[in-house]
C-alpha cells in the first residue's frame, strides 16, 4: 500500500502551538504540586497522622559548670543534711541553678500515704532541695506531679503541700488543661498526653525520687519517677513497663536528679503499708545520669543484683546513660 503524505489539519495546532500548550500545562501542574508541597502539613489534613503531632521536651541540662563528680553520694540519717551533702559533692547547687531561674521539682507523690511508709518522696527531701534552689537565687520553684490517687489527698498526706506552703513553692495540680500531647520516638512511648504546663515555665528541672520496691518492675527510682507526668490510661504501659521506663531517659534530660535512700521501701511496693517494709539505709545520691543513679540505688540501697533490672540494661544499651557507675567519678561523703 502506497504511503500517503501527511497534510496538516488546517484547524489543528502547529508544532510551536503544541509546545506552548504543553509548557503551560506543565507549568500549571508543577505550580499546583509546588503549592501543595508548600502547604502540606500532614497533621492538618490527614486524620490518620495525628500521632505525628505533639511536643518534645528540650534538654534541661545546664552547661553552666561541669559537676565535680558524676555521682555525689552522701551517707547519713538527717535527710536535710545528707541531701545537701550529696549535691555539694557534685560541686554545689550553683552548678545547676542560676539566679532568676524558674525551677521545676518533680517528686514522686503517687499515693496518699504518710511519709513514714516511704511510698512517696519524703517532704524533708523536697525541703532540702527546694531550700538549696532558693538559696541559689531561683525566682520561682514549681512542684508538680500527676499522682495515681487524688492529687489533693496525695499532696496533703505525703506532707508535700505542707513544705510547699512553708517555703512558698508553687504546687501545680494536674488539671486537664495542663496536658499536651507528647511526641517522641520511644521504644513504647510515642504519642501520649504529658503534664506539660510546668515545663512551659521551667528553666531547670530536678527529679526527687524515693528508692523503693515495685511489684511490677522490681524497683521504682529516678527513671520511674517520670511516669508520674503521663496522663491518660497510663497503666496500659504496665505490660511493657521496662520499655517505657527506659523511654523516660530518652524523653527528658533533667538538670539534676536526687535519689533518696535514707529510708527505703524494701517490700510490698510500690504502696507498702507497714513500717516493717521500710529499711533505714541512710544514703542519698545525686547526679545527672539517671541510669547510673538507678543502677547505684538498686545495688546499694535496695541491695539487689543489677543483672535482674531489665530497664537499666535497656536504657544502657540504648545509650541513654551508663549503668556502670563504678567506672564513673563518684564522690562519697559521710555526715
Amino acid at each position, binding site marked *: 500500500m502506497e504511503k500517503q503524505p501527511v497534510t496538516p489539519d488546517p484547524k489543528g495546532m502547529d508544532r510551536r502551538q503544541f509546545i506552548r500548550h504543553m509548557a503551560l500545562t506543565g507549568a500549571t501542574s508543577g505550580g499546583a504540586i509546588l503549592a501543595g508541597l508548600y502547604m502540606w502539613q500532614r497533621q492538618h489534613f490527614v486524620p490518620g497522622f495525628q500521632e505525628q503531632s505533639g511536643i518534645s521536651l528540650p534538654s534541661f541540662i545546664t552547661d553552666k559548670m561541669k559537676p565535680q563528680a558524676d555521682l555525689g553520694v552522701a551517707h547519713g540519717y538527717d535527710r536535710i543534711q545528707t541531701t545537701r551533702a550529696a549535691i555539694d559533692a557534685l560541686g554545689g547547687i550553683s552548678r545547676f541553678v542560676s539566679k532568676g531561674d524558674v525551677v521545676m521539682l518533680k517528686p514522686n507523690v503517687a499515693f496518699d500515704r504518710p511519709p513514714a*511508709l516511704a511510698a512517696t518522696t519524703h517532704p524533708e527531701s523536697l525541703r532540702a532541695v527546694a531550700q538549696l534552689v532558693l538559696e541559689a537565687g531561683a525566682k520561682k520553684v514549681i512542684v508538680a506531679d500527676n499522682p495515681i490517687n*487524688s492529687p489533693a489527698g496525695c499532696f496533703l498526706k505525703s506532707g508535700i503541700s505542707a513544705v510547699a506552703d512553708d517555703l512558698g513553692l508553687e504546687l501545680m495540680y494536674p488539671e*486537664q488543661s495542663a496536658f499536651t500531647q507528647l511526641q517522641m520516638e520511644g521504644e513504647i512511648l510515642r504519642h501520649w498526653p504529658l503534664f506539660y504546663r510546668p515545663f512551659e515555665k521551667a528553666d531547670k528541672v530536678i527529679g526527687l525520687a524515693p528508692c523503693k520496691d515495685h511489684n511490677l518492675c522490681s524497683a521504682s527510682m529516678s527513671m520511674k519517677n517520670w511516669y508520674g507526668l503521663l496522663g491518660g*490510661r*497510663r497503666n496500659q504501659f504496665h505490660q511493657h513497663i521496662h520499655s517505657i521506663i527506659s523511654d523516660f531517659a530518652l524523653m527528658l534530660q533533667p538538670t539534676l536528679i536526687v535519689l533518696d535512700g535514707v529510708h527505703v521501701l524494701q517490700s510490698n*511496693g*510500690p504502696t507498702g503499708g507497714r513500717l*516493717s517494709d521500710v529499711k533505714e539505709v541512710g544514703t542519698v545520691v545525686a547526679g545527672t545520669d539517671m541510669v547510673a543513679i538507678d543502677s547505684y540505688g538498686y545495688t546499694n540501697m535496695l541491695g539487689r543484683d543489677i543483672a535482674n533490672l531489665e530497664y537499666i540494661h535497656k536504657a544502657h544499651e540504648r545509650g541513654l546513660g551508663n549503668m556502670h557507675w563504678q567506672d564513673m567519678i563518684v564522690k562519697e561523703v559521710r555526715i
Partner: protein
Amino acid sequence: MEKGIGALIVVSLVVIGGSIAIKGQRYDPSRYTGDAEALEFTREAVTGIAATLGAEGDLGEGAAIENPSTSSTPTREILPFISGLEAMGPTERYNADTLYEKINGRAPAYLEYNFQELTCRSFSLSAIAGEYIDVYLFRMDTPLNAFGIFSAERDSSGTQLEFASDGYASEMGYFLRQGKVYLQTLASSTSPEVMKMAKSFTAALAQAIPADDSGMEGKLSLPVENQVPGSLLFINDNAYGQASLNVVFEARYLINGVELTYFAKSCEDPARATSVWGEIKTFYSRYGSSVESLETEGTQVFSADMFGQWVTIYVKDNLVAGVINAPELEAAKAFVTGQLESASREEDLEAYDF
C-alpha cells in the same frame, strides 16, 4: 471549546488551591489532632473520680453493718461510728478494672488472688490536727484468697490481734482477714492516740464483717502450740515444687530449739488425698534417699531424705500433712507423731514407730 475547558480547569485549580490555603490558615487542632478520649481519661485519672461512687457501704457480700440495705445512707451510719473520727472525703470504690487507680503497680498482686472490690475511706482525728486513718477493705472471691493476699503481705514482726485470729498489729496499722475481706487500717503516725483510734476502728469493722472460713480446713488443722508468730502462710500453687500441692497452709514451729516447717492440705475426698500423698512419695522415692514408710489404721506415712533435709508426710482421711525440709529426721517424726496422736486421741492410737 478546548480553550474554554482548559481555562475552566486552570481556574478550578486556582480556586481549589486558594481554598486549601484558606482552610490551612483556619486549622483547628482540636478537630484534627486533639485526642479527646485520652484527655477524658486523663481527667478521670487525675481527679480520681472514675471509680468513686456516691453509694456507701457494703464491706462484703451480704455484709451487715448496722444498716446495709440503705445504700444512700450516709457513711457514718453504715460504717461503724467511732467517736472522734471525721470522714475526710467520700467513700471510694474500685473494681478489678480500676484497682490500679488506687494502688497502681501493686494491683496485680491482688488480682492474682481474685480481687473483687476495694472500698476505702480516710478519717481525720478530731482531737489531733494533721493525724488521720486510712481504711482499706479488699474483698476477694473466697476466704481462702483473702487469706492468701493477707499472708503474702504479712509483717512477720507483727503482734497477734486479740479480736481476729488472722490479724496483727504493725507499728503503723492493723491488718486482718475476716471472711472474704482483707482489711487494712493505716495510721498516719505511730502516735499512741492515733494507733488507739485505729485499733478501735479495726475492732469495730472486724465485728461487722461476716465470718467465713469455708475452704480453709487445711489451716484449721495446723496446731497453734509452738507456732512461730507471723509464720502462717498460704501457698496457692506448686508448694515445695510439687504440682499436686496446691491450696496449702504452712507454719513454722520451734520445738526444743529446732525450727520445723509443717504444712497441711485438705482434699475433697480421701481418695484424692491418697493420690496426692502418693505423688509426693513417688517424687521422693525417685529423687530422695532413705525412704521408709508405714501404714496403719487408715494412716499412711513416709519419711525421706533429700540433700540432707528430711520430710515426714502422712495422709489421713482428707488431709495430707507433714514436716518438710527438717534438719533432723527424729524431730520431723516426733512432730508428725504428735499431730497424729492429737488427731486420733479418741482412737487411742499408739505412737508411731517408723
